[in-house]
């Protein structure tokens, strides 16, 4: 049978595996959900039908077919989905109902079987949906559900056949175990194997248990404990109660018979005593009376309780009060007011071995007459009656009453076994060990009986009840109780679980979902679970916290914005905005920062030898780090440039320095040029920066094709190429950062290098300032309303002229002063970027030339100047009388006005204004050379 059971159970698992594989591995998975559910439902419905047949199920031997039909809808519903379960249940159930009419299935369990199969489908559907979150359960739950469903099935069989309770109960008793196990196994195996295939470890186990799982486990444990406790308790109680009930039933029959016999025996003796009293005249006729009425004793007792006369001579003179048994008569009749008294059959006071039954009636003279006889005598009188009393008496439904005498010979029994010994029918008991009313077991004709006895008037009345009858109610109670408890506890389990899930777990999930969104950065999510006060307050707390957080973030953002703005200002203010004024070049630069702090910068500064260094650079990234890196790069480059280092060398050294401690991995692109304003020679280096636009005077702009070097701070040990370009007056150079070429419009189109080139070539005038402003305007026009993402930085330089060596020769008369003045002015103009240079040049020219004109008597003079290494050298040559102004006495400038000498101040002032003066007299000429340091 076990083999059959397992085979039947495995059909479902096979179908489940087949469908599962189909669904996961083949095109079946693409079938729409509803159709798929329908197909699965129908297939499992067919499986349920198959289980109903003799092949799918199995005969337990008497034509009753055991089956695992209910497992099919359960498998469909639990493993594949609620609709499939319901469809399979309906198909299986309806078939089971209809099959009866074609003789394919039994009518006895028709309703119970079909309803339970349909129910199985719904149970599976509801459980999957509300308890297992539309996932398949673990195999243990599957097995449990299969078993509980089958318990329901069994209970329904019993209840639908209540009019035939005994048979229905027998049927249920036989079917319960195999069918409950069979269905449980069928569902459990199917779920287990499908889980194995899907490689899911039973359900949705994660590292941490979900509340629902922990709760399920504990609830299950509690429910099982409660179930075991109540079942055990009710079973014990039922057993006890059924014992009491059995006792009572037997006892009732026994005491009826007992009373009847006692009454009959009493009235028999009283009748005899009455007759003897009637006939007693006070003479010596007691012997005759005793034999006439067939009694052993007839005693006359006087008013003092002494036997005054008896048919047994030795009794005469006996004091009735001397024995307990005999004293009862004295107490009742002489001391009390009874007129007659009867005693049951018992040992006499006079002699313990002798059993007697006595009756007595009061006499008119104050004494009483007592009659006694023994069992043989009264049995002759009442045996007949005893037979009628017990003959048709039943104990319970199938029990009986048997009566035997003191020697255990049957007086009466159902089939007139009179005379035979009691033990012949299987009942034996020893009155010494088994007390009256106590239950003992006997086997009567192979049937177990529960027995009990009463002893009365020399009869043993034995009541017997078949054990199965005694136990039937108990078993029914225990079965039904247990079944009901299983169902109730299962329902309770599901209900409590469902409630907890609804009230707590679902709400927790809702809150968690909200929190997950919040932690992902969406602070605008509000958690709103209001199903009960606790969750409402939790929701409020969360919302409040998020609100506070939002406020803090906003405040922090505002603070950071302010600080960034500050940083931007610092960065901005570090850029030079006063542009050098020079005849030889014009320079203009501008940086338009984006909203954020960026890393763009430009820089320019005059170097010692009249050269100007200028650069445009772009630090990678944005924000404070970029700004700080920018300051560093700017300082390093400027420091090197001011020490007179060449551009390529500046980059080589700066790259090394910037690579140090560059943990942030920042880098900077830069284009650095150093223009010798005297010669127009531009030396430059490019570290990965956008190629500048360059325009020769009168030609178009072109991108400078010179190969770029590696960007700065990118890699150590880079050597940068040296580039040189000879500028001629009218040449224009335009440097920019990618903020210009990578400006994007609303369609994310780039401004681009071509557009920039076309635009600058369309311009008529390319003055540095207007060039920069026009390009910015054009970029703005292109960008439109799109936000500016990057800093826009540009620098334009226009080379105008070269300061060369100049000289003038004059005849030193007063008229020549004007020409010399103009010569001095032209020099001042060339050096207009130098502070206070004009004043110095004026003083030098004025004082020295005045001396030549006024005192040298020269006929020819020449003045020349040159600029070298940041120094202006001016030479005055004349052919006048030799005069070394350096030897002239210095005036005392500390004297008061009155003490001062007029004169000598001119040379003194010149000395003060110059770095050095040299005088020599060669070839009959005075040559005075002055050196003025340029900054």
């Amino acid at each position, binding site marked *: 049978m076990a083999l059959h059971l397992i085979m039947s159970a495995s059909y479902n698992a096979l179908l489940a595996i087949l469908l599962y594989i189909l669904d996961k591995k083949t095109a079946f998975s693409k079938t729409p959900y509803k159709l798929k559910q329908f197909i699965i439902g129908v297939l499992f419905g067919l499986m349920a039908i198959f289980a109903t047949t003799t092949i799918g199920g199995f005969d337990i031997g008497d034509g009753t077919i055991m089956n695992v039909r209910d497992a099919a809808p359960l498998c469909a519903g639990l493993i594949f989905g609620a609709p499939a379960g319901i469809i399979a249940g309906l198909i299986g159930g309806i078939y089971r109902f209809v099959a009866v009419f074609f003789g394919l299935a039994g009518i006895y369990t028709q309703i119970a079987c079909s309803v339970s199969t349909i129910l199985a489908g719904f149970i599976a559907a509801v459980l999957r949906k509300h308890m297992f979150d539309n996932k398949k359960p673990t195999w243990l739950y599957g097995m449990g559900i299969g078993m509980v469903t089958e318990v329901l099935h069994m209970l329904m069989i019993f209840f639908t056949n209540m009019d035939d309770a005994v048979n229905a109960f027998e049927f249920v008793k036989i079917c319960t175990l195999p069918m409950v196990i069979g269905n449980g196994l069928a569902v459990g195996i199917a779920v287990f194997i499908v889980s194995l295939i899907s490689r899911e470890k039973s359900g949705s186990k994660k590292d941490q248990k979900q509340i629902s799982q922990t709760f399920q486990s504990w609830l299950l444990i509690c429910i099982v404990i409660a179930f075991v406790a109540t079942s055990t308790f009710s079973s014990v109680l039922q057993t006890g109660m059924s014992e009491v009930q059995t006792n009572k039933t037997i006892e009732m029959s026994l005491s009826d018979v007992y009373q009847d016999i006692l009454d009959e025996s009493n009235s028999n003796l009283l009748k005899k005593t009455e007759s003897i009293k009637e006939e007693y005249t006070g003479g010596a006729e007691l012997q005759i009376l005793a034999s006439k009425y067939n009694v052993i004793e007839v005693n006359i007792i006087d008013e003092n309780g002494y036997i005054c006369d008896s048919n047994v001579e030795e009794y005469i003179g006996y004091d009735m009060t001397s024995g307990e048994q005999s004293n009862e008569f004295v107490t009742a009749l002489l001391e009390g007011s009874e007129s007659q008294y009867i005693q049951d059959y018992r040992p006499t006071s006079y002699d313990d071995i002798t059993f007697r039954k006595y009756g007595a009636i009061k006499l008119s003279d104050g004494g009483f007459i007592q009659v006694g006889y023994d069992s043989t005598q009264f049995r002759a009188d009442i045996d007949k009656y005893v037979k009628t009393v017990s003959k048709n008496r039943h104990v319970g439904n199938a029990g009986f009453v048997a009566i035997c005498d003191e020697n255990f010979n049957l007086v009466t029994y159902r089939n007139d076994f009179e005379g035979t010994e009691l033990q012949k029918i299987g009942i034996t008991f020893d009155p010494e060990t088994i007390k009256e009313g106590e239950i003992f077991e006997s086997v009567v004709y192979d049937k177990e009986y529960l027995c009990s006895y009463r002893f009365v008037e020399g009869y043993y009345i034995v009541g017997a009840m078949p054990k199965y009858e005694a136990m039937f109610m108990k078993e029914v109670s225990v079965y039904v109780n247990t079944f009901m408890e299983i169902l109730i506890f299962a329902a309770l389990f599901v209900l409590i679980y469902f409630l907890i899930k609804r009230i707590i777990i679902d709400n927790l999930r809702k809150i968690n979902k909200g929190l997950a969104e919040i932690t992902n950065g969406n602070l605008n999510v509000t958690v709103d679970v209001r199903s009960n006060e606790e969750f409402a307050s939790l929701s409020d707390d969360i919302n409040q916290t998020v609100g506070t957080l939002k406020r803090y973030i906003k405040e922090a953002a505002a603070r950071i914005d302010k600080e960034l703005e500050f940083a931007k200002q610092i960065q901005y203010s570090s850029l030079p905005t006063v542009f050098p004024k020079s005849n030889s070049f014009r320079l203009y630069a501008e940086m338009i920062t984006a909203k954020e702090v960026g890393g763009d910068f430009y820089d320019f500064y005059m170097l010692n030898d009249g050269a100007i260094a200028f650069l445009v650079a772009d630090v990678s990234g944005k924000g404070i780090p970029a700004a700080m890196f920018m300051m560093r790069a700017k300082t390093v480059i400027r420091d090197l440039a001011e020490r007179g280092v060449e551009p390529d060398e500046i980059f080589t050294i700066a790259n090394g320095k910037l690579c140090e401690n560059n943990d942030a991995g920042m880098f900077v692109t830069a284009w650095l040029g150093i223009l010798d304003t005297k010669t127009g020679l531009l030396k430059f280096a490019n570290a990965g920066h956008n190629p500048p636009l360059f325009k020769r005077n009168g030609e178009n702009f072109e991108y400078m094709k010179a190969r770029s070097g590696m960007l700065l701070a990118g890699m150590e040990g880079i050597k940068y190429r040296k580039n040189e370009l000879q500028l001629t007056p009218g040449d224009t150079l335009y440097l920019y950062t990618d903020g210009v070429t990578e400006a994007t419009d609303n369609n994310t189109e780039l401004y681009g290098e071509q557009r920039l080139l076309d635009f600058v070539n369309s311009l008529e005038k390319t003055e540095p300032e207007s060039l920069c402003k026009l390009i910015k305007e054009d970029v703005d026009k292109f960008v439109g309303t799109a936000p500016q993402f990057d800093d826009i930085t540009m620098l334009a330089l226009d080379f105008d002229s070269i300061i060369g060596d100049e000289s003038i020769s004059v005849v030193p008369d*007063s008229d020549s*002063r004007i020409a010399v003045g103009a010569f001095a002015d032209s020099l001042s103009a060339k050096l207009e970027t130098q502070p*206070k240079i*004009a*004043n110095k040049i*004026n*003083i030098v020219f*004025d*004082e020295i030339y*005045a001396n030549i*004109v*006024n005192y040298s008597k020269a006929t020819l003079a020449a003045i020349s100047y040159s600029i070298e290494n940041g120094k202006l050298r001016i030479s005055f040559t004349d052919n006048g009388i030799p005069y070394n102004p350096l030897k002239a006495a210095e*005036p005392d*400038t*500390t*004297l*008061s*006005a*009155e003490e*001062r000498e*007029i*004169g000598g*101040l*001119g040379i*003194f*002032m010149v000395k*003060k*204004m110059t770095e050095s003066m040299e005088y020599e007299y060669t070839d009959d000429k005075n040559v005075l050379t002055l050196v003025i340091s340029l900054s």
Partner: protein
Amino acid sequence: MTIEKKISNESATLIVSGRLDTQTAPELENELDSVLSGLKELTFDFANLEYVSSAGLRVILKAQKAMNAQGSMKLTSVNDSIMEVFDITGFLDILTIE
């Protein structure tokens, strides 16, 4: 160089513009000679004076000496370049500059 004179009773203001150099200094010297006698207060307004050479200094010193004897003299609105010249030559100590 141009010179504008404002004379009232015993005080005079000379507004000197342009360059006060070797060439133009004699011109200022002549002007001073004509106004100095009996003067109690002399003011030079150098707001528009660009440059002073040693010859100019000579004239200014001469005027200061004269005014020390008969009254007071002051200079107003002196530009930076000229101040430097005054500084180098120690004239700051002997002049009254406002």
